[in-house]
């Protein structure tokens, strides 16, 4: 069984190995038939990508991902608190509404957003992406935080309320410390989806606010196909999220199962 598991994992992981191998190849070895498995690794492609102005795109992605994730957390934590610990009327309607916005196909809203952003003169503006990524991740974050809050024993909150602690104080001193792993999981999921987002970035940015996925595509179409260089760019583009996901595997599992794991 263990051998089968390793074998399956290796086959499933093979495209990743191949991507990384190609990134270290000279261009002539990258697109060859039959495939080259043994070669002298070179950093040439990474240097080419980095000297090709990748930095600005990474900075844009960093801002769009970082700021939107912070905004999501700031909005989602109080909202999740309201729908879990102190339920407002029609809690499940509110939750239903949040998740239903995730079902709204993004193509159905892209044209008005494009036209409105054009009129507000915020096309090709990183702030526009920040707002859209916040809206994109907020519903899932509310759902996730709600399920983490529900694991907090009610007595703890009653005690806080007896002591006369207000919302901010209760959140800051009692709730947040208790759900830190859940908060980390929520933030990680938001980071993954924001960092990887392509559709809005493709349609709403041009020269100034383009993010890493758009940079990757420009590598493919600009001056013919350079497979090794494209692979190096792909590795660099994926690396931050891959490392974050590897480090925080436990949080990722909890996050994806919406805190359902006890």
């Amino acid at each position, binding site marked *: 069984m263990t051998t089968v*598991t390793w074998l399956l994992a290796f086959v499933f992981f093979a495209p990743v190995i*191949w991507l990384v191998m190609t990134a270290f190849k000279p261009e002539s070895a990258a697109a060859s038939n039959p495939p080259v498995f043994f070669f002298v690794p070179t950093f040439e492609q990474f240097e080419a990508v980095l000297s090709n102005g990748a930095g600005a795109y990474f900075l844009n992605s960093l801002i769009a991902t970082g700021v939107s994730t912070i905004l999501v957390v700031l909005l989602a934590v109080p909202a999740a608190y*309201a729908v879990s610990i102190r339920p407002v009327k029609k809690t499940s309607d509110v939750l239903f509404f949040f998740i239903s916005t995730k079902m709204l196909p993004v*193509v159905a809203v892209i044209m008005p957003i494009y036209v409105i952003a054009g009129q507000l003169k915020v096309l090709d503006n990183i702030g526009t992406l920040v707002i859209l990524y916040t809206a994109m991740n907020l519903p899932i974050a509310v759902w996730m935080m709600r399920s983490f809050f529900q694991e907090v024993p009610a007595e703890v909150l009653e005690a806080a309320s007896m002591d006369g602690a207000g919302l901010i104080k209760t959140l800051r001193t009692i709730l947040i410390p208790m759900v830190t792993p859940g908060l980390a999981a929520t933030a990680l999921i938001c980071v993954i989806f924001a960092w990887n987002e392509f559709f809005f970035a493709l349609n709403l940015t041009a020269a100034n606010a383009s993010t890493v996925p758009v940079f*990757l595509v420009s590598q493919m179409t600009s001056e013919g196909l350079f497979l090794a260089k494209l692979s190096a760019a792909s590795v660099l583009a994926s690396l931050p999220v891959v490392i974050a996901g590897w480090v925080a595997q436990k949080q990722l599992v909890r996050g*994806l199962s919406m805190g359902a794991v006890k």
Partner: protein
Amino acid sequence: MSKAEGWRRRGPLLPALIFTIVITQLPFLVTIWYSLRNWNLLRPDGNQFTGLQNYVDIFMDSTFRSSALNSIVITLGCVFFAMILGIIFALLLDRKFRGQGVVRTMLITPFLIMPVAGATLWSISMLNPSFGLVNWAISLVGIPPVDWTASHPIISILMALVWQWTPFTMLLVLAGLQSQPKDVLEAAQIDGASWTKTFVWVTLPQLRRYIELGVLLGTIYVVNTFDQIYLMTAGGPGTASANLPFYIYQRAFLGFDIGQAAAMGVVVVIATIIIATFALRLIFRSFDAKD
């Protein structure tokens, strides 16, 4: 409950709720408005009110129908195969063995790879007819080379999508397996139940919530698939592999047919809401049963 108390409870919810309504619902209302207009940026005389004409045109449009069918095939195909593979991987991982952590790390990586990078990796490095790794691998067992993205565009897209989404379902099912009370499994073993019987009658029912959640969330994300289609086949050959998001994008940003694209968007939203309502009721039922 006093009025002040009600607002105190509702207050923390409002910023998120108002933000979501403004950013997601207002543009959709504008989409509905656009959908009632004959507005093509390439025609200077355009932009008049035409009522439901755009909707009538959609139902005459055979590409819209084939894109809708592709959307269904791609979404169901991806979620189904990713779930089956996810369950297999999760069962294999849910045992103690040497290198368990490494194997898990390997298996979750495709989910973390940027989809744009994953799509180019599959379309070029893996599926290229002359130097792709897949054709090299099948040549080892004597199968002649296949021009994957040109002759089997949907299968090619499904390969990339299933690869990317399997870790997601695997992690969910794994979470379900790990929350399984061990005494029930031991009891089944003592009763002499076979592995298959234990799996079907004990494990699967306990995994139900996790599988449902995986199907729901997977569907939400996969139905919006754009990156893989844009990069691997550009909807082609012709429009053979276009799904609805890609076709609407084409009508809007390449055909500049705002009215038509908006109407398609509205139709997709209505269809999605109908399907989602059923799916969510199901999920809510199984969540409430536990809470």
